[in-house]
């Protein structure tokens, strides 16, 4: 025993190296496979604050562009709202609508830390549990989908953007509703891939890809991108389709977090089925 301790003490450099690397590997594994890491709960309050301060400064440089974007979106929303339409006949009667039930709620947020240059781009937004956010909520912007919330602290949230190794988003072709899923192969942050579109379907360059609404995370009809390349390899039964994202993730600033108000109901339904 004494010899062993002496041996370790003599080689303390090597053993400390092994110990620290083991600690790092532990952090990596824990951080990657279970999102329940203490990491973000404690430290993100600090780094989150620093990001927010620097972002407040940086925000001024992009004000023009962001304002244009928000104005465009406001215009679109005004066009869709009630007062943009005139009643076509005097006989129409307005009444409380009991046929439709609200499913999605949108919470506005700002991206305070983002990147597009890494293989796994984790973003941080400035809303958290206190503002009603929770894990597994979708994040969209005015031009398209952005990602999924994976961790929330009191005032900030960690978002896996679609530019992530584990991104896997249910999507479909707008013109014929054929469903597949979108992933990001890395390198170019403007381009993604949609898998599982069968070879007999007619796909052309420029076709629109939207979310399918299958996942409970995103509503249906949220823009994902447009097809930029499509071909079927000899003997394969599925397409190779490259898409160009509609959102330019390099300048995403204002986003909306999507809260599915019926998620619990859907979840208990599917779980009840699984239990049988």
């Amino acid at each position, binding site marked *: 025993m004494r010899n062993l301790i002496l041996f370790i003490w003599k080689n303390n450099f090597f053993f400390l190296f092994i110990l*620290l690397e083991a600690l790092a590997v532990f952090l*990596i594994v824990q*951080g990657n496979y279970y999102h329940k890491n203490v990491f973000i709960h404690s430290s993100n309050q*600090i*780094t989150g604050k620093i990001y927010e301060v620097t972002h407040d400064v940086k925000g001024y440089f992009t004000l023009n562009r962001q304002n244009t974007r928000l104005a465009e979106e406001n215009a679109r929303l005004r066009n869709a709202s009630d007062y943009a339409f005139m009643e076509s006949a005097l006989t129409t009667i307005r009444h409380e609508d009991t046929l439709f039930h609200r499913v999605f709620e949108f919470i506005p947020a700002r991206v305070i830390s983002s990147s597009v*240059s890494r293989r*796994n781009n984790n973003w941080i937004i400035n809303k958290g549990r206190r503002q009603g956010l929770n894990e597994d909520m979708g994040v969209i912007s005015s031009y398209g989908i952005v990602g999924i919330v994976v961790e929330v602290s009191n005032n900030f949230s960690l978002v896996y953007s679609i530019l992530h190794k584990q991104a896997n988003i249910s999507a479909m072709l707008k013109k014929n509703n054929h469903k597949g899923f979108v992933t990001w192969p*890395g*390198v170019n942050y*403007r381009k993604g891939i949609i898998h599982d579109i069968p070879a007999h379907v007619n796909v052309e360059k420029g076709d629109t890809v939207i979310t399918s609404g299958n996942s409970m995370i995103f509503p249906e009809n949220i823009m994902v991108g447009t097809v930029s390349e499509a071909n079927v390899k000899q003997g394969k039964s599925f397409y190779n389709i490259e898409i160009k994202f509609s959102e330019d993730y390099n300048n995403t600033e204002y986003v909306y977090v999507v809260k599915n108000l019926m998620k619990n109901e859907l979840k208990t339904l599917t779980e009840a089925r699984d239990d049988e």
Partner: protein
Amino acid sequence: MMSSNKIMINILRFVAFVLIQGLILNHVNINGYLNPLLYVMFILLLPFDMSRPLTLILAFLLGYAVDLFSGTPGMHAAASVFVAFVRPYFMDAILKHDEEETGNEPTIRVIGFRKVVYYNGVLVLIHHMIFFFIEAFRISEFLQTMVRALLSSVITIALIIVIQFLFFSKSKTRSGLWR
């Protein structure tokens, strides 16, 4: 042993490198491909006679601090600790004994331009390779990861050499934060 002045300078460097990496370089996006990791220069700049276990611990803390900013738990820490581990062996291999004077740091003034390029080049390359391969963690993306690591290393090394020329080339004439 380090003088208290040296310790202060190194603490300032630590904070400066973490902030530069976390707030600026992590958001620099060159071609959607390159991500220079300049913070590793902190480890490479530690004095020759720095206690080896202490170097490891500093490297871990540095990597972990950058991890906090990047949202990549443990990845930068793993790469940094490895660099801190190889550094003394590599220094012994390429430097002459009289160059490894007490308290000196491996700068252009002390070991000369050629050795600075060699020393920083190899260690930065090792660091970037480890980091980018841990980050991707897929054999199917081998080539792409390789290219990313290589090109990012080139940029980091270039930045290090520029900083070496700006702050470490002349002897006592210039004073400032970095000395």
